[in-house]
């Protein structure tokens, strides 16, 4: 009976203890960066991101902390993540441009795939939502022209116009993201391109920090990538971070 009482008290205490919210952890990380402890801040940002927090502010601050440490590749990666979440944020585009110049990279080295860029712009301008709306509108107008307003001409014209627009917008909204390969950013200077996905593989070439490369396939901790010069090979995922996932703690320098 006594044991049961102790257990109950402990459980109540545990539930009543103030759990640290994502907002509080974010502020703690930002404070660490502001106070000069950028590595600690980056670690906290990564932990937050790995718990599923998807906030443009998180990746923006992460990019600022990485850039302050001179890790341009990591900053580029974080900004691209930020842009994915808030494609309309002009400050992200400006910061990306600045980092690209600092890293002495050409635009082609940070935007390796025209289809991905098209998908990004489609996302920025809500092309997906607009496409869905236009498809629905065209169907409604068609139904109206057929059964509700058979004598009126405008529903027919409207239905076909909406359908044509929807089909045009479907290319960047649906086909471009589907056809574009996933991207990854090089976060380690001189990251090697290997001739095999193996620890004993030979080095074919080296990558430039901040360079964005398409990911062709993945094998364990290795990504098969293609650099801006066309060289294909394998790179460690800890050195080339995919844009669609949060890096493991071991990848943080």
């Amino acid at each position: 009976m006594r044991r049961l009482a102790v257990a109950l008290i402990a459980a109540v205490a545990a539930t009543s203890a103030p759990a640290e919210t994502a907002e509080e952890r974010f502020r703690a990380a930002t404070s660490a960066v502001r106070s000069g402890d950028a590595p600690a801040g980056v670690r906290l940002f990564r932990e937050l991101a790995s718990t599923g927090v998807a906030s443009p502010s998180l990746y923006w601050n992460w990019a600022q902390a990485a850039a302050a440490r001179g890790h341009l590749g990591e900053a580029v990666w974080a900004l691209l993540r930020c842009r994915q979440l808030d494609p309309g944020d002009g400050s992200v585009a400006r910061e990306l441009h600045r980092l690209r110049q600092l890293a002495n990279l050409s635009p082609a080295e940070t935007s390796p795939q025209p289809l991905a860029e098209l998908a990004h712009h489609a996302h920025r301008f809500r092309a997906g939502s607009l496409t869905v709306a236009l498809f629905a509108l065209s169907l409604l107008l068609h139904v109206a022209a057929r059964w509700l307003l058979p004598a009126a001409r405008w529903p027919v014209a409207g239905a076909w116009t909406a359908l044509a627009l929807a089909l045009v917008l479907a290319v960047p909204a649906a086909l471009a993201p589907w056809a574009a390969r996933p991207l990854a950013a090089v976060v380690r200077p001189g990251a090697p391109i290997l001739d095999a996905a193996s620890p004993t593989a030979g080095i074919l070439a080296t990558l430039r920090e901040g360079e964005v490369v398409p990911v062709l396939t993945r094998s364990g901790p290795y990504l098969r990538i293609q650099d801006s010069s066309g060289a294909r090979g394998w790179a460690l995922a800890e050195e080339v971070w995919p844009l669609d996932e949060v890096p493991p703690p071991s990848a943080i320098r």
Partner: protein
Amino acid sequence: MSTRVALPWRRLSAVALLGLAAAVSAAATTFEARVNAARIGLEDQVQLTITLADAAPRREIAMPALTGLEVVAGPSVSTQVSFVNGAVSQSRSYIFVLRPTAIGQARIGAVSVELADGERRTQEITIEVVEGSVLPRRPPPADPFEEMLRRDPFEGFFGRRTAPASPAKVLMEAEASRRQVFVGEPVLVTFYLLTQTAVSGLDLAESPSFSGFWVEELPRAEAPPGETVTRAGESFQRFGVLRRLLYPTRAGDLTVPALSFRLALPRRVGFFTDPGPSGASTVTRATEPLPITVLSIPASDAEYGGAVGSFRAATSVDRREVPLGEAVQVRFKVEGKGNLKWVDRAPKLEVAGAKVYPPRVTDDLRVTPDGVSGERIWEFVVVPETAGTLEIPALAFPFFDPVVRQVRLAEAAPVPLAVRAPAAIMEARRPGVAPAPAGLALRADLQGSDVPSEPSPQVVVAVAALSLLGHALALAAPLLARRRGAVRGSQRRRSTRAILADLRRARESGLSKESAAALIEKALTETFGDLEGAGEGAEEILRQAREVLREARFVRYAPQLGEYRDKIEELVERAAGLIRRGA
């Protein structure tokens, strides 16, 4: 490879002949004899020069009488042709080397020549001969063709051969600086002319092929130095005429092949006859093959990279501090003596935090009798990719040192490189880069994305498919209805819109009442079918339609007693309403 040993005086002879053929001058004729010393020792030699300017002799010049002197060599011929203000002048000198035979007064008699305008004579020359030597000693002969000056030139000209001479000998021989070398180590092979007579020309009879060797040509000396050597008890003057630097390319017993030379030996037939090619006989002489033992290098090619010799290395950069993003030139210089010319493999340079581009190779190499010496430079372009202090690592150049017979490393010290941080770059000269805001532009709120999430491509595709399916169904609906109507015996064939358009034509002013009524009747029948067949208990719309139909027929068949336009307008309105409802 073909080597021709050119003789300067051959060209001079040709010029002289041209000069004689075109000897036209308004200048005064000069004919004189002179010596280079008026007082000589018994052990000295004196040079007699007879010069004839701006005239051509009608006969050969008579040899002057010599008292107390004898000819040692000559004559050598020197011709000068000059063109001044369009006038041609030429002079020709004959040079003898004389030797005193006794102490006291020696005399050179007057020399005469018969010219077109008469005979000319020189003054007699007296030379005082004392004991010993009073003139500076002559250096040894520096040219094989100077030998001809030492011979009696008058054997053929004056026909006074003093004693029968044995035929002069000419030989060729080859000599190697070393007979045992390592692969890649140079051997200097010199081809010598050994002669007891004058030689007016020398050519290689055939192109040599030095199989197993890499051949480097050495620059030819202006005048080959001569020396006196003895072969088989006979004295020869020896002149190096051809030199080659040979680098063995493989181990084993190699042979420098025998080389054949064509030698031109002059035949003297007269005092004024040029000892040129036309007056020469040609003989061929060959050298003996030279065996060379080539030792293999006791190391693998990967260990020493093919370099043999003695080298040292150094690394330098064009600047020690660089803004991030700018390039640095790293120069790795290897200098020394050896086969550097054939080392192409660049040292491997990897700099952590920087991209290294393939090097450009430049060299400054000289071929000397001791081997090829100089420097080779690999210039790398290194682009730092991160700020901080980078280090150009220590680079090493492996080579085989044949002196110590082992592989050695010429090492260059590492070079630190300071790469300025981004902030420093922005403060410095990067006008194209937007300045970073002061401090960190951090955001305070962990706000989620306020942008409504976009439908995924799959959702868009699904909606598109559904929409297209809906459109297809809407398009197919009339067909289905028509089929259903056909089953029920319906007469409807056209769409409501088409029927209404047809009905609107009944309002047109030019139409007769019969035609207008027929259009109304047709529209109603197409829409509702056989209205007369519908019973009294039919639904309201059919009943109203039948009413309109009957009125239309009445108008159609009624006599034209008045204006039916208003009635037709009314019937069209009523029929259109019913058709819209019925559709």
